[in-house]
């Protein structure tokens, strides 16, 4: 265990923002926190990062690093009138570390930024700012990284490359990553474990595959030569571009695919669709 948030509660007046939240991450693990807007994700992350104090509960980080945990809350906060090197200089000097030119270059390369760029950060795209924010979070080699909605505002290519970057950091540098989003698809194949937060409470937790699969209630089938789908009325098929959306469970999809293939249908894609109602259904 490297990170353990235990029974965290926080209220603002009569509003219970968090209620007895438990969250554990292992070393090198990528943990995802899914929740709708206003579920309490940012509040929990702020508590974990020490920006606000919880009303009760504890946060324990097992680390001997001078900076056990680094993070980005929502959009990265940088000094826009400074350039990348100056931002790194500012954030490193305040924590008493000196970043040499060599270290700076390596850090920039690690997050996929050019070390030669001299202009102010205000000229950077959002994706580049995210990367620079990540570089700042990685200063002083934290054992744990907390990223709150890091994909927010990024285009698909940006999301894809940021995904890969996080995976690389986790696998190669053995950094524990705690990442939040309100979009299931962003976290499903990135995270090892998932926590579902609804109205300040953890309602589901477990391996991301299991959590994601448990909420799948339909599939998008793409292909050619589909038969008359009226025969499958019970699955409520909906015609979509290039195929159908069918409501069917994980257990039954294999059987359906076999049937369609036997009837001469050429299936080119079968994409599970998570049902957010099911995902956020509180069975506790």
């Amino acid at each position, binding site marked *: 265990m490297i990170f353990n948030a235990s029974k965290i509660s926080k209220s603002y007046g009569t509003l219970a923002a968090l209620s007895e939240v438990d969250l554990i991450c292992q070393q090198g693990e990528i943990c995802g926190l899914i929740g709708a807007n206003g579920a309490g994700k940012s509040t929990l992350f*702020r508590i974990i990062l020490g920006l606000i104090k919880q009303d009760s509960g504890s946060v324990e980080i097992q680390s001997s690093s001078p900076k056990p945990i680094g993070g980005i809350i929502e959009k990265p906060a940088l000094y826009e009138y400074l350039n990348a090197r100056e931002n790194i200089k500012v954030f490193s000097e305040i924590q008493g570390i000196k970043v040499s030119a060599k270290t700076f270059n390596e850090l920039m390369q690690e997050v996929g930024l050019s070390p030669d760029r001299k202009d102010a950060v205000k000229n950077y795209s959002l994706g580049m700012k995210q990367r620079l924010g990540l570089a700042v979070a990685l200063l002083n080699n934290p054992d744990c990284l907390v990223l709150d909605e890091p994909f927010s505002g990024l285009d698909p290519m940006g999301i894809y490359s940021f995904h890969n970057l996080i995976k690389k950091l986790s696998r190669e540098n053995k950094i524990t990553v705690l990442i939040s989003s309100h979009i299931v698809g962003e976290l499903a194949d990135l995270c090892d474990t998932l926590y579902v937060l609804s109205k300040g409470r953890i309602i589901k937790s477990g391996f991301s595959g299991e959590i994601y699969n448990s909420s799948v209630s339909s599939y998008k089938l793409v292909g050619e030569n589909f038969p008359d789908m009226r025969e499958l009325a019970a699955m409520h098929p909906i015609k979509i571009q290039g195929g159908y959306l069918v409501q069917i469970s994980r257990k039954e999809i294999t059987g359906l695919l076999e049937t369609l293939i036997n009837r001469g249908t050429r299936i080119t894609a079968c994409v599970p669709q998570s049902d957010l109602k099911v995902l956020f259904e509180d069975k506790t």
Partner: protein
Amino acid sequence: MMKGVIRVELFKILRQSKTLYALVAIFIIEGFVLVSAYYQGTEIIDLLLANLKDTFEFKGDLLNGNLIIYMILNSLWFHIPLILMIIVSGFLTSEYKDRTIEAVLLQPVSKTKFIGSKYLVSSLFTLLVVFLLAISTFGISYLVFGKGDLVVYLNGLNFYPTEEAFWRLASAFAVGTLSMLFFSLVSLTFAVLFKDATKTWIVSAIFLVCTNLLLKIDFDNSILNRFFYSKLIDSWQYYFYYEIPYEKIYINMSVLFLYCVFVSIAGIIVFKKRDLLP
């Protein structure tokens, strides 16, 4: 590590263009005050010496650099604190607005060190501004208007020879610096309390106006009249009494310094205790 935090704060101040704008604004105001002091100066001297013209003949020019500096000194103590309060509070409110305060506190640096360095650097900045103001005021005034006796009206006409006028004016600037420091630190504490730049500016301006009004009010309480902060702000004027009340000045400065310390500590405590909410 405190040195590093302070160095970084100084670096940020010097790299921001608004610092330059603010300094330019201060010197532009000084220029306007200097020009108006020159045109007002003749009128003032005529008014002061009106009753004496029947009996006396005057030799020498009272409209000289020393009088200009004195008039600038009198006018500076509203404009300059206002600008200082805007700039200094901006050192913190801009960090709230840009959320860089979160990014900083996500690093292993204590809240106390962070906000403490803000107070320290704001103090250094204030000292630097007043020092530059003094140098330019003395330099330009002496260069353009030359030296000479200084006439001051304080319970009568006081005439000071040029050398004496210089050190009285310089001492007044030095003592006035502590008043400016007080305003700067108050504005930073307001920034801690209000976080938002506009709110902080409004409150700071109101504070400055009220201070100037309270300066003129006679309280019923002798302790308040003696030690309330607004009564200490213009202690620099004592340097233009014919017999300088040194003890009073030292006591006033000590008490004002205590006010500065109190305001700073209050700001640090509030900042430390408060959650950093979005």
